[in-house]
């Protein structure tokens, strides 16, 4: 009895001493979607400084990037993500439903449906817009080569798909017409990459395609990275409000003992400092101050939400992207 009490006392003292003096850097793994690579390089540095100032502890955030659907699949298969920062709620729902490593009401845990920023879908075209692309209608014309990733693996591609669908539905009045519109659009796509960044590379570096349906942030980044190529951004008349959400993967974080720092990591995304970084990387900040500061860099666009047009991600995923959904019906027939 006595020895065990002494031992536990020693352990407690050691733990305290450890906390006070030689804190080991804590490690987080952030599994994210494709275009956020540059954003999180900056944000991770900012968060590390913030966390160090607040707690004295060093934090190292490791990153993994890929198509959002593919990344979700990896987390389901056991990739030890402390936090997931994916392209759409449906992918985190898939993790919650299939691997049960976080509760199904995860989206209520942080403000704005757990989306620290929003974005939308725009078109990136070549210098001088030689094919005269102005709106979604121009993408289904014969002879226009369109670049978009594969909706099965990429989150961005699913936003693209739904934006095109809703545009056609509003214009022509029926789901059948919308399906035909999307079928024509996909017939103009020469390559379906697995993630948004792969598609950017196809369009920007391999010079394939006349128009790239892209995340707004990805389009601005490509424009900035390749000033010599003279890319132009075309904002369609209607697009979708994309809300890329973030979540702590409870089971993994608990096991690694990182719940506190992982939660702080996501909460800090809503701070003014982070919101400014977010705006700098061409995402649309949710804080009023940062949103106002960066408002002028984005084109005016009418946005609709997935909830009002498609009844939320679970339904949209089932109707359109699961096996046998509209994408399969269109694409497999091709």
């Amino acid at each position, binding site marked *: 009895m006595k020895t065990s009490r002494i031992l536990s006392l020693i352990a407690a003292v050691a733990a305290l001493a450890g906390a006070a003096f030689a804190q080991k850097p804590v490690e987080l*793994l952030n599994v994210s979607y494709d275009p956020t*690579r*540059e954003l999180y390089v900056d944000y991770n540095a900012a968060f590390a400084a913030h966390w160090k100032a607040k707690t004295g502890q060093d934090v190292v955030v*490791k*990153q*993994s*990037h*890929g198509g959002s659907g593919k990344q979700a699949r*990896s987390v*389901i*298969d*056991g*990739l*030890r993500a402390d936090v997931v920062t994916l392209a759409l709620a449906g992918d985190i729902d898939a993790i919650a439903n*299939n*691997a049960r490593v976080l509760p199904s009401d995860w989206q209520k845990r942080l403000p704005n449906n757990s989306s620290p920023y929003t974005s939308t879908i725009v078109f990136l075209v070549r210098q001088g817009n030689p094919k005269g692309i102005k709106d979604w209608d121009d993408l289904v014309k014969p002879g226009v080569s369109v670049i978009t990733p594969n909706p099965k693996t990429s989150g961005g591609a699913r936003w693209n798909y739904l934006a095109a669908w809703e545009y056609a539905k509003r214009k022509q009045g029926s789901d059948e017409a919308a399906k035909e519109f999307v079928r024509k659009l996909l017939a103009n796509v020469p390559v379906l990459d697995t993630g948004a*960044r*792969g598609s950017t*590379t196809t369009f920007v570096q391999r010079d394939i395609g006349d128009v790239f349906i892209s995340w707004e942030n990805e389009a601005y980044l490509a424009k900035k*990275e390749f000033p010599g190529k003279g890319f132009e951004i075309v904002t369609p008349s209607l697009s979708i409000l994309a809300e890329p959400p973030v979540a702590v993967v409870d089971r993994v974080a608990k096991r690694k003992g990182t719940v506190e720092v992982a939660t702080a990591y996501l909460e800090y995304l809503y701070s003014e400092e982070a919101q400014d970084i977010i705006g700098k990387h061409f995402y649309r900040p949710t804080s009023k101050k940062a949103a106002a500061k960066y408002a002028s860099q984005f084109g005016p666009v009418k946005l609709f939400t997935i909830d009002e047009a498609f009844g939320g991600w679970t339904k949209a995923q089932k109707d359109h992207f699961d096996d046998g959904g509209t994408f399969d019906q269109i694409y497999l027939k091709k």
Partner: protein
Amino acid sequence: MASAVSSLNRSAGHAQRPLATRDSAWVRYTLTAVALGFLALFLALPLVAVFAEALRRGVGAYFAALNDPDGMHALRLTLLTAAIAVPANLVFGVAAAWAIAKFTFPGKSLLITLIDLPFAVSPVISGLIYVLLFGAQGWYGHYLAAENPWFPAFQAWLIEQDIKIIFAVPGIVLATIFVTFPFVARELIPLMQQQGNDEEYAAITLGASGWKTFWKVTLPNIKWGLFYGVILCNARAMGEFGAVSVVSGHIRGETNTLPLHVEILYNEYQFVGAFAAASILALLALVTLVLKSVVEWAHARRRA
């Protein structure tokens, strides 16, 4: 005769060789030019391009790009993976080739087919096999999550030690071993079959033990083929992309091998970095090729 031939083919030069083994000059020059042109276009040019792109912003930028901790980690992981996969396949390859070439047993043709399997399936499938076996939703994951598992102590130990297989180094090593499985065995089987069992019989008849026969008779006979197989195996182990990509999880500074790191840098518009990392891979390949040539040269000299 010789003078007649040389007068007929003065331009060709090799007067002393018999007529039937020579093609006319233009055929030989055309073929040589086509072969060299092809090599230059498809091998030398891309190789030069890798180094040219890597050095585009100067030697300073090149070394700065190489000095990236994630890149260095990727290089170490690549070398570690090869250092485990190659010896494993060396032992397996020798054992399998020995069994197949020197003995007959039931299931032999099945074994040969199985050895070829990694050549036949796409590397992506090779990676997925391990995800299905060791993923959280696979056999291993179900075992870890089971409430009444077989060998509960083993399960407790695995959980306690936090043994990760896929999305970690063991998965990368396993996938690499799988993909490079056939190289050594495939190199040795025809060689050992051709050599037959005579020398081993002689050794055993003269009283040598099995081990002694292996070390003194079999191994010296297959030495060069073995070197060659190991070199090819190593080249593939360091260069493998597809299978490793599936099981890696792409965590920077942790589970990215050099080929995966090249892709990441390229996708992040860091061209100097991407090509610098690619140039390291190319250098590793060139070292391998030089080694291979040395082996062949030494082998030819011994024969002569």
